[in-house]
């Protein structure tokens, strides 16, 4: 059967003399069912090709073209590129012959060796995880290259069924279509399947296509950067404020679309929480700044939102933008939205204090800050801490109530909840210490900047360091490297500026 198709396709394409075969960009918009979710092909292509190769361009082809051509190769059509994948772990590099990039065609030949190495590693280690990641990449690659990954809808009298592309193109279908018109019969039949699907199925995937094409995270990052630059470099508050408002609007659109597509609050994975905390922090900062008539809040909000948008745009390995189905226990929109939103907003508010604390430290190191000014700005920090702490306490309690309501215990010493309590306790210790005057004005910003490391631990560390367990040290994964660098740099800043523990007198 496949053999017959092979003959026709070769015949057809040899006469057409194109090397993009049926990979017309118009098919980007077609629906696909993969990973438990309906989405446009272009989104799925980006998810899998980026996962496989770590790149968004391969030999000049975008992810959609790469995905489509690779699927086309299942019909025996030759493709003139070889996909490579990064080899991350040291031991895996050694196993595959001291390489840090390897072609999938070569990788497949070594599948057996990889499997043997994987089975010989008795304990879960960074190496073993990397090997199993390699094996799953091999499977995914094979799945695509065999034409099994691209699922095409077929409308059988209102009932939608999904078939892989290598079964979708039957000899009869192609022959019939190529007889009728001069159009590419493959493209035509795929477009036809989309039309039939649209007549019967769910159309949210079309929204996702627009969402995908708009590239709003990048736009909002640029807007945020302009706002920040006008404030810090050009000292023009009005322009900064206008751009902040536009940034917020763009991010609101982005988040709203995400909510429409996923059908849930945009706070269910690391990518979304980082995005939401930056956005929330900017909104909170603008509101507080407005009522307190203090412009520095806008600076804090912009600076933090920019940090989070940088991560959103560039930390692909750590923050995965894919929308995927939730585990059953989280499928409760009310609790999810209230509890997680409160916690993430509190992290955002605490991040505002972290930005200003570091600004004070750096300012003191390179220039001067009078004790009166430091007192004043400590008070600004204190204001954002107030919001952060109240929301954190409320969020922890909401989490307890949710846990109690869903599985019958208010508190279970689970690492995530314990770490959020640690964060609360550390900030409470700082606040109590400030009341006793144990913590002097000059020390406050250092402690606040340091305390934010506990937030990072609760937020990222529990997922990237604690969740991996005893045998997965090695810090081979993106998240752990990021967190390690964050702790390192923050500690370094605190150590370098420790001589500035005393405020220099203003001249």
């Amino acid at each position: 059967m496949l053999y017959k198709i092979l003959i026709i396709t070769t015949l057809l394409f040899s006469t057409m003399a194109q090397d993009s075969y049926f990979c017309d960009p118009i098919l980007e918009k077609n629906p696909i069912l993969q990973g438990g979710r309906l989405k446009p092909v272009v989104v799925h292509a980006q998810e899998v090709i980026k996962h496989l190769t770590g790149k968004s361009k391969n030999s000049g082809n975008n992810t959609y073209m790469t995905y489509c051509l690779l699927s086309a190769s299942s019909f025996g059509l030759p493709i003139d590129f070889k996909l490579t994948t990064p080899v991350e772990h040291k031991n895996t590099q050694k196993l595959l012959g001291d390489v840090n990039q390897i072609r999938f065609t070569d990788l497949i030949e070594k599948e057996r060796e990889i499997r043997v190495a994987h089975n010989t590693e008795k304990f879960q280690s960074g190496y073993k995880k990397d090997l199993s990641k390699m094996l799953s990449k091999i499977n995914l690659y094979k799945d695509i290259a065999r034409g099994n990954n691209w699922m095409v809808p077929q409308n059988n009298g209102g009932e939608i069924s999904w078939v892989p592309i290598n079964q979708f193109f039957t000899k009869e279908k192609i022959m019939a279509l190529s007889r009728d018109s001069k159009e590419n019969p493959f493209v035509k039949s795929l477009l036809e399947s989309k039309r039939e699907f649209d007549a019967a199925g769910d159309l949210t995937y079309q929204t996702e296509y627009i969402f995908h094409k708009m590239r709003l995270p990048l736009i909002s990052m640029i807007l945020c950067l302009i706002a920040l630059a006008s404030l810090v470099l050009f000292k023009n508050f009005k322009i900064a404020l206008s751009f902040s408002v536009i940034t917020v609007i763009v991010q609101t659109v982005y988040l709203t679309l995400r909510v429409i597509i996923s059908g849930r609050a945009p706070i269910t994975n690391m990518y979304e929480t980082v995005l939401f905390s930056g956005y929330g922090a900017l909104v909170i900062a603008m509101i507080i700044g407005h009522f307190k008539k203090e412009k520095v809040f806008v600076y804090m909000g912009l600076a933090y939102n920019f940090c989070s948008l940088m991560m959103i745009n560039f930390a692909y390995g750590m923050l995965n933008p894919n929308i995927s189905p939730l585990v059953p226990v989280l499928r409760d929109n009310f609790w999810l939205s209230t509890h997680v939103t409160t916690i993430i907003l509190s992290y955002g508010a605490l991040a505002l204090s972290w930005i200003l604390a570091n600004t004070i430290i750096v300012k003191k190191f390179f220039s001067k800050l009078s004790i009166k000014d430091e007192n004043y700005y400590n008070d600004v920090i204190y204001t954002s801490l107030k919001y952060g702490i109240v929301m954190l306490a409320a969020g922890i309690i909401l989490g307890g109530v949710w846990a109690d309501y869903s599985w019958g215990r208010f508190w279970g010493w689970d690492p995530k909840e314990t770490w959020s309590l640690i964060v609360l306790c550390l900030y409470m210790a700082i606040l109590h210490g400030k009341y006793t005057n144990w913590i002097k004005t000059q020390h406050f910003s250092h402690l606040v900047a340091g305390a934010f490391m506990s937030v990072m631990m609760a937020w990222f560390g529990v997922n990237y360091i604690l969740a991996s367990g005893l045998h997965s040290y090695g810090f081979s994964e993106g998240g752990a490297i990021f967190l390690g660098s964050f702790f390192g740099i923050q500690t370094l800043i605190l150590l370098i500026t420790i001589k500035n523990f005393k405020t220099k007198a203003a001249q």
Partner: protein
Amino acid sequence: MTELYNKIEKKIGSLKFAVIIIVIFSVMMIIGTFVESYYGTDFANRLIYKTPAFMGVQFFMFLSILFATFTRLPAKKRLYGFYVIHTGLITIGIGSFVTYIAGIDGTIHLPPNSPTRTVVLNTDVIEIIAPEKNTRATLNLPYTPFDKNIGIEYGDIKVEDYYPFAEKETKWAKSETKKTEKLNFIHSSTYVLANPNVTQDFTLSLHPEAFDYKSSMTMGLLNITYLPYGMFNCFQKKNQSGIIIWDSKKEECFTLDEKNIQVQKTSSGKRFFALNHEGLVYSFLPDLSPWAMDVELKPIMNSPFRAFSMDLFKDKPHLFLFGKALAYFDKDSEKWISENINLEKKVDLPWMGFELSMTNHGDRKAPLTFPKKVLPVQENGSVVIGNLKAARIKVRDQSYWLTNEKPLNLLIDGVETRIYLTKKSHNLPFELTLTKFKMDKDPGTNNPASYESFVNLFKKDGNEQHHVFMNNPLKFDGFTFYQASYSQDPDSGQYSSTLSVNVDQGRPIKYLGSLLLVFGSMWHWMLNRRRKKKDNDILGLEE
């Protein structure tokens, strides 16, 4: 006395004490989360979270909060928020204490369609049951992270050591059973099967006490069967019919040819033969079943004979091991190959370049397992090492190991006594039956999207139908049942459901405290707004 109390109240209620106790509490929690991540939840609970030391710290936090409030009375307007926050925290503390003292937290496992009322709690106990005397005793085991020498006694039974986290360790030891005279019946061996890509060692045993070792296994396409050595010589004998009979009374084998027994065919072409022994006739359909049948073709359960048809093992790779010997059918030469092996000799096998060697053998010695105390290891959220619990029981002069996997059955003064290492259980005043279990999957995948249990609740005045699923618990008679997990029977494919069961009298108190805490903190911040002045803007902006 009042002076001393005032002094203590002032000390403990001071801000400095508060900072110190908060920091100690935080440090213990930080250690706890790392311990939890490496060694698992249970170990962390036993080492930190549920220890008297950690509870003591919480108690001092409670005192600190309480005394801090007392020392700031009579009430000042500036501190209204503060009072509410601290009252909230004290209330949460009281609520948690009530839960700790009176609450129940356990799980109930519901197999399909069978009424259940037993809730399993999280305390390890030893249960001693003497069915004839109708007695049942429950001994609580200590909540400790490490092994402990305990001396709990119950009659003649003494619990000596307790390992909360253990693994099985195999030691080749001599059996204490002396009844078997012949050695070709209870042997055990360890082999290594290797080719350039894979190396696998495995132990097979026929010893009745080697519970953890089987006598057959599969490795990919290869089947391996461990047979008594006494059967080996029949594999070597010339055997036209290819049928071997094993006499389990004499512990020896013979072929049909030796006894001149004719094989006949049934009308449907199946081979059959009959064996006369001590006046009884045993008939066999050797290609269908090894068991003997009587005249009416019903299996004879107490027959000493079993038939072994070699023809059945010609098609697929099948290796027979007899301790110090092996046999297999070689497809190329169309012959049965049999060979002796020993600890030095390696044998080439005809499949995938495999080579077999023997690394250990015992005619009487067997791979017996003993518990060994370990530090648990957690991987991907579940404990992979240290799941065994063990206790050493001494009855008069004899010591026994008891594990949570295998109960002990002893005869003490002629009375049958069963000893279990298990979890404490609680019987519900009503019964639950799982009538249906439903699992939805994410479209196009095998990932569960939701799981739901339909249960029948039997109470004194009739029964009720309930539907329990994630975020929708069943509340009845002070108990709350939550959908926790499920399991599937690999044979029947039927689902069982596990619900977590909970009684929490402290709940409303904790909720009240939480409300006070949140509103108190908002009030506090609103009462303490102050405005400061600056000289220069930190960003250099004009005012």
